């Protein structure tokens, strides 16, 4: 039952835990997505700024490189202009230019048509590098008419330097060349020739791609018509083919013209080969116009910090979730523990409630307890401080003796209650056949000491009040002495403390006795009365108790207890009750009987005298006009007790006498048997077991059994060296 319950809890717990974890994971995911979105935006903005700067710087670099070329040529221009009158010297000029500029692939001087009539319409001396050698020759103008090239005429007409569109080297198709054309003037300032210098664009590409924004980034330089002038070293291009990139830029060039912002255009692309995403930005800064410059960056690298952050986030999130799972698990466990503990507490509470009922049922419940009697007024009460307590009190009448007790077990709650129950049951079982309070105490004490490893002890008071005579025998085991109230005099019963029970098994308890005057009230209490504490931790005290009792001399037992309880309650007020409060009040109110018949006979301790006894009893019953059956019953009872005395009170052969007194009124018939033999209490004899078989049944023990059955009460007392036995029959 318990196990299945636990499993059910765990399953429910797992469900809740998973729900919490999933929610937390989703929250973190959402958070990271938002963060990622803004981070990406930020990176993009940064990229735009950086590419703008990159393009600007690269353009600047290109410009400087070109200017360097232009400056280098300026000197050679002077040389050419000086050599103009000597056409053949121009060959050596071209050779010198190539020699002095290792970056130049070659150069040529294209004269305007008919400038040297002796050399024909066109004249173009050249020098070109071929490996390590330089070839100087006259360009074959038959094959290639440079005047047909648009920029030639443009440069000549406008007297301006001009960069040609890139073109493939006719000798080596893998080399892309650009030509710088510079006007040459005659002394009159007329443009007479163009100096053309061929440059390997790869050189510009190296300048352009010396540094990239990211490891895979590269830059492109495009002519105004969108032809690739230079780019990265093809071996270093990881992803998309440069050709595709150029095509893409050319396809979208229109956008740039439309935008008119002067800002770079940014295009996103996806690599055709490996699906890698990237962005290309391009622009045509004024300083190199109409050339265009582009920078290509791959998202993988651009967003690397973001990806790294995202990875870190995932790891952190997982760790966080793990920790959360652990915390949930632990807290769930403690919640279940708490719940279990609560359930356990409820169960214990309800069990304690049952225990309380059981304990309360052990105590006398109905008042007045002896409605048929007029010689006793008894009231008791027990208010436990906790659910169950260690206090107890009880009383009962056996053979015209009132047995009463009050006790307090050390400690509180369940352990005290257990010992209390044991003590109570021992008291009842031992006093069912024992009337001597010290012997009852000893019997209980021995049992309590046996195996008392928890060292619990019990303060206890036992009283046995002989109701016909008022003789009170009592024994105290470390308990508060009871108080007696006679008139306005309240005083403690002189009770020797002895030792609480449960301490020393062999302890010899002392019995004390006194004669209780009629109308005396005996008040028994536990320290819950005198040690009751108020909010100021002050005790109720004995003095206050005595003062209250002094005014209670006319009160009934019930009134007295109620008054005391009320006073204690008022005193304690809101304070937590510190101990069980147990009170028992007994008022002894014997009534003097008046008899209409009174006879007596004295017999020797000889069973032969039974015949005389029977005649005596018969004469009594006849005078009372009892019916035959009742007469026989009474005769039998008297015979049994007398024979008992004859047989047991006197040692064999010792002569003695038994006095039999009979007295009667309308209510009852009483016999009092007095003898001077040794102390012999027939009421203390254990009852014969009437359920045994013939073989097991002892011969004897029948007489007293018969008397108890035949008469209403039997009572024994030893007073002044005499055994006094009373038997009584009510009519």
């Amino acid at each position: 039952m318990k196990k299945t319950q636990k499993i059910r809890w765990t399953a429910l717990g797992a469900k809740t835990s998973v729900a919490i974890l999933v929610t937390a994971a989703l929250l973190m995911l959402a958070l990271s997505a938002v963060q990622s979105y803004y981070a990406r935006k930020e990176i993009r903005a940064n990229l735009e700024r950086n590419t703008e700067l990159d393009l600007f710087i690269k353009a600047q670099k290109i410009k400087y490189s070109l200017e360097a070329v232009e400056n280098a040529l300026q000197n050679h221009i002077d040389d050419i202009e000086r050599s103009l009158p000597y056409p053949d010297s121009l060959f050596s000029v071209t050779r010198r230019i190539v020699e002095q500029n290792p970056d130049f692939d070659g150069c040529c001087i294209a004269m305007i048509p008919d400038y040297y009539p002796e050399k024909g319409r066109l004249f173009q001396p050249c020098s070109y590098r071929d490996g390590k050698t330089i070839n100087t020759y006259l360009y074959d103008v038959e094959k290639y008419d440079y005047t047909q090239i648009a920029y030639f005429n443009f440069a000549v007409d406008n007297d301006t330097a001009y960069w040609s569109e890139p073109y493939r080297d006719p000798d080596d198709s893998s080399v892309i060349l650009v030509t710088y054309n510079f006007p040459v003037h005659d002394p009159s300032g007329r443009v007479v020739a163009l100096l053309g210098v061929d440059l390997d664009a790869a050189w510009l590409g190296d300048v352009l791609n010396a540094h990239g924004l990211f490891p895979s980034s590269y830059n492109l330089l495009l002519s105004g018509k969108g032809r690739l002038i230079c780019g990265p070293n093809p071996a270093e291009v990881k992803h998309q083919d440069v050709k595709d990139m150029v095509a893409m830029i050319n396809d979208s060039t229109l956008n740039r013209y439309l935008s008119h912002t002067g800002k770079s255009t940014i295009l996103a692309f996806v690599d055709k080969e490996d699906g890698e995403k990237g962005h290309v930005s391009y622009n045509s800064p004024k300083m190199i116009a109409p050339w265009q410059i582009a920078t290509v960056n791959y998202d993988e690298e651009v967003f690397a910090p973001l990806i790294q952050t995202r990875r870190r986030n995932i790891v952190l999130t997982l760790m966080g979730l793990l920790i959360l799972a652990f915390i949930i698990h632990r807290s769930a466990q403690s919640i279940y523990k708490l719940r279990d503990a609560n359930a356990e507490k409820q169960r214990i509470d309800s069990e304690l409630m049952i225990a309380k009922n059981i304990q309360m049922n052990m105590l006398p419940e109905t008042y007045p307890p002896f409605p048929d009697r007029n010689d006793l007024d008894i009231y008791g009460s027990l208010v436990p401080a906790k659910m169950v307590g260690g206090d107890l009190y009880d009383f009962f009448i056996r053979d015209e003796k009132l047995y009463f007790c009050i006790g307090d077990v050390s400690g509180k709650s369940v352990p005290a209650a257990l010992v209390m129950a044991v003590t109570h049951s021992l008291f009842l079982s031992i006093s069912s056949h024992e009337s001597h309070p010290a012997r009852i105490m000893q019997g209980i004490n021995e049992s309590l000491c046996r195996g008392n490893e928890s060292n619990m002890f019990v303060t206890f008071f036992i009283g046995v009040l002989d109701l016909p005579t008022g003789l009170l025998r009592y024994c105290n085991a470390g308990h508060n002495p009871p108080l007696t109230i006679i008139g306005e005099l309240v005083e403690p019963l002189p009770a020797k403390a002895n030792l609480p029970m449960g301490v020393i098994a062999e302890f010899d308890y002392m019995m004390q006795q006194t004669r209780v005057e009629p109308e005396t009230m005996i008040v028994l209490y536990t320290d819950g009365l005198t040690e009751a504490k108020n909010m100021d931790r002050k005790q109720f005290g004995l003095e206050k108790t005595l003062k209250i009792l002094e005014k209670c001399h006319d009160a009934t037992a019930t009134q007295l207890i109620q008054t005391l309880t009320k006073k204690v309650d008022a005193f304690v007020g809101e304070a937590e009750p510190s101990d069980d409060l147990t009170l028992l009040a007994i008022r002894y109110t014997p009534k003097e009987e008046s008899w209409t018949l009174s006879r007596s006979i004295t017999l020797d301790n000889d069973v032969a005298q039974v015949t005389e006894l029977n005649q005596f009893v018969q004469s009594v019953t006849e005078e009372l006009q009892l019916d035959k059956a009742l007469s026989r019953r009474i005769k039998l009872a008297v015979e049994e007790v007398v024979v008992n005395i004859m047989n047991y009170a006197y040692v064999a052969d010792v002569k003695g006498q038994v006095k039999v007194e009979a007295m009667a009124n309308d209510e009852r018939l009483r016999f009092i048997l007095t003898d001077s033999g040794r102390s012999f209490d027939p009421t203390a004899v254990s009852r014969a077991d009437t359920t045994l078989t013939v073989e097991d049944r002892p011969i004897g023990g029948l007489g007293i059994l018969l008397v108890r059955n035949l008469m209403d009460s039997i009572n024994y007392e030893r007073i002044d060296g005499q055994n006094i036995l009373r038997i009584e029959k009510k009519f």
Partner: protein
Amino acid sequence: MNTTIIEKDGKYIVTLEGELDTAHALEFEEAMKPLHDVTGKEIIIECTELEYIASSGLRILLGLLKNAKAKGNKVVLKNLNDEIKDVFKMTGFIDLFVIE
């Protein structure tokens, strides 16, 4: 108090008369002694005339019964009056004896 024992058809018939009080118990015990020696017999105790019995008388009957059980005798009590039957009930003897 009178006790007579007669043997008839292999059975012992004990007739009790009067009051069996403690004063007469010894006398009754003596009278019953011969029955302690018989074996395998039925002992019928006729109580029609028995008016009274004290515990001393009951003890003698119990002694007789214990002996009879040991010797294989059967003891039957007959015609107990109401008061004596009450006494037998009070003492539990009603369950020990065969009572007719």
